């Protein structure tokens, strides 16, 4: 009983491959809808989908979305980028954290329509094209900074910004400025250790020295 979904995912493919395939196949029909059905950016009938362009991980995605769609739902349900997680969906847990420009924000409390034209970076956009992990990703692996992993994409994105903000100067600083990312497994000590490791690695990468 092969459905179209089965064909899209491909029998025997890994979950990661499925997600990547899903991303490309979901975006294409959305593009077609946007081009043919919704010429206006802000329809007066709130039930009509609104055409919008989202820039995610360096790529423009033209989509037509219900205006109520949050950035998190746009990423997960329409672009196939399921790295950002839906935890509380009310801005309390941080699992949905993404970068908007250079800043970490909560994608669950952000309307997709309100971020058009501004670059969004998700966990899928951190590693290099050759697969080399971002220093924060590598540090989370090295320091065993997660258990179930559900909060981890949000933790890692938040940590990238935390280090760049200059808020990772000491353990207390890290704990305070990472307090918006909850971890039910309580991997906090290892998360702090990972951020310290990543901070050193990023400093070396930036200046060629550890200071």
């Amino acid at each position, binding site marked *: 009983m092969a459905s179209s979904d089965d064909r899209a995912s491909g029998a025997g493919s890994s979950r990661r491959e499925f997600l990547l395939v899903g991303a490309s196949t979901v975006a294409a029909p959305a593009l077609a809808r946007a081009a043919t059905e919704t010429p206006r950016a802000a329809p007066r009938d709130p039930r009509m989908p609104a055409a919008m362009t989202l820039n995610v991980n360096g790529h423009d995605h033209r989509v037509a979305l*219900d*205006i109520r769609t949050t950035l998190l739902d746009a990423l997960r349900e329409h672009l196939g980028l399921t790295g950002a997680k839906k935890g509380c*969906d009310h801005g309390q847990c941080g699992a949905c954290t993404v970068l908007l420009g250079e800043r970490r924000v909560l994608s669950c*409390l952000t*309307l997709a329509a309100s971020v058009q034209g501004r670059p969004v970076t998700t966990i899928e956009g951190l590693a290099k094209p050759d697969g080399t992990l971002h220093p924060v990703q590598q540090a989370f692996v090295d320091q065993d900074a997660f258990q179930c992993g559900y909060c981890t994409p949000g933790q890692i994105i938040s940590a990238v910004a*935390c280090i760049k903000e200059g808020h990772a100067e000491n353990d207390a600083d890290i704990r305070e400025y990472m307090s918006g990312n909850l971890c039910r497994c309580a991997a906090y000590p290892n998360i702090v250790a990972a951020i310290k490791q990543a901070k050193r690695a990023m400093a070396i990468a930036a200046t060629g020295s550890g200071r």
Partner: protein
Amino acid sequence: MQPFIFERADTPAAAVRAGTSTRGPSAVAGPIQYLAGGTTLLDLMKLDVMRPQTVVDINALGDGPLGRIEATSTGLRLGALVRMADAAEHPAIRSDCPMIAQSLALAASQQIRNMASLGGNVLQRTRCTYFRDVTYQACNKRVPGSGCAAMDGFNRDHAVLGTSDSCIATYPGDFAQAMIALDARVEVIGSGGTRTIPFATLHRRPGETPDVETSLRPGDMIAGFRVALAPWMRRSLYLKVRDRVSYEFALASAAVALDVKDGQVADVRIALGGVATVPWRANEAEDALRGQALDDRTMEGAAQSAFATARTQAHNAYKVALGQRTLIRALREAAAMQI
């Protein structure tokens, strides 16, 4: 979430024109809402507590004066679309009036501070469970005349100052305490142009109409805040006591600025958070301290006078003692500051 029409405003006039196209008694419950950071609005729309018909995205106005911090030796102007994180980290604010920077840095999480605007922050709505959960039928703030489920409910987090028989919901913010303590003024753009009002008149005590939370009219938009600073306000701080050390609302907080000359209190500003229905200026406590030496007896007396009108409920009587001790500790820490 209810469907809504989404609009973008590129000028303050366009925003206000969009916002004032309907009438009503209350800006916060109006059918047209401005979207800045969205951290309160989207949350409450998902909960079905707020159901605007039109959402006007005003973030493009942040490219103009609404997005700027202007700091001089005599004062600050904080644009309403300045993000909490930017004001919290501003060097002049941190040095010239630590109370303001701390009230922002101790609020929410960095993600939320990156998103939330100062204008939206002062309009943040209560965290009262019975307000946020629409399955509770009785909430005078949400459904006028329906009663108050918090009175007979779990009211540990609720207010002891400024309450009424209709509502005991706590004002949840922090920055507003700094603004009211410093006699800030609020620039408001409305259909009649720009006007400036004292911050102390922005929020309304619940009285019999807890659904009307501010003096803003539908369509009014906060453009910015003006604060006159004196050199002695370097001796100021915001102390926040909460159930966990970070990312939590205040059980009790105190914004204190202290001017001590020759061992006597020449001037003092005090506002309290976490304990009141609105940002709470503790005028009685200030009066009790001016001209006095700052010692255990005068601080104790000031703290008692600050809570003289407190009305407690079944689970929040602890807030009187906690609020008093929070104020005394804030005064002690301010007096000990090296400036």
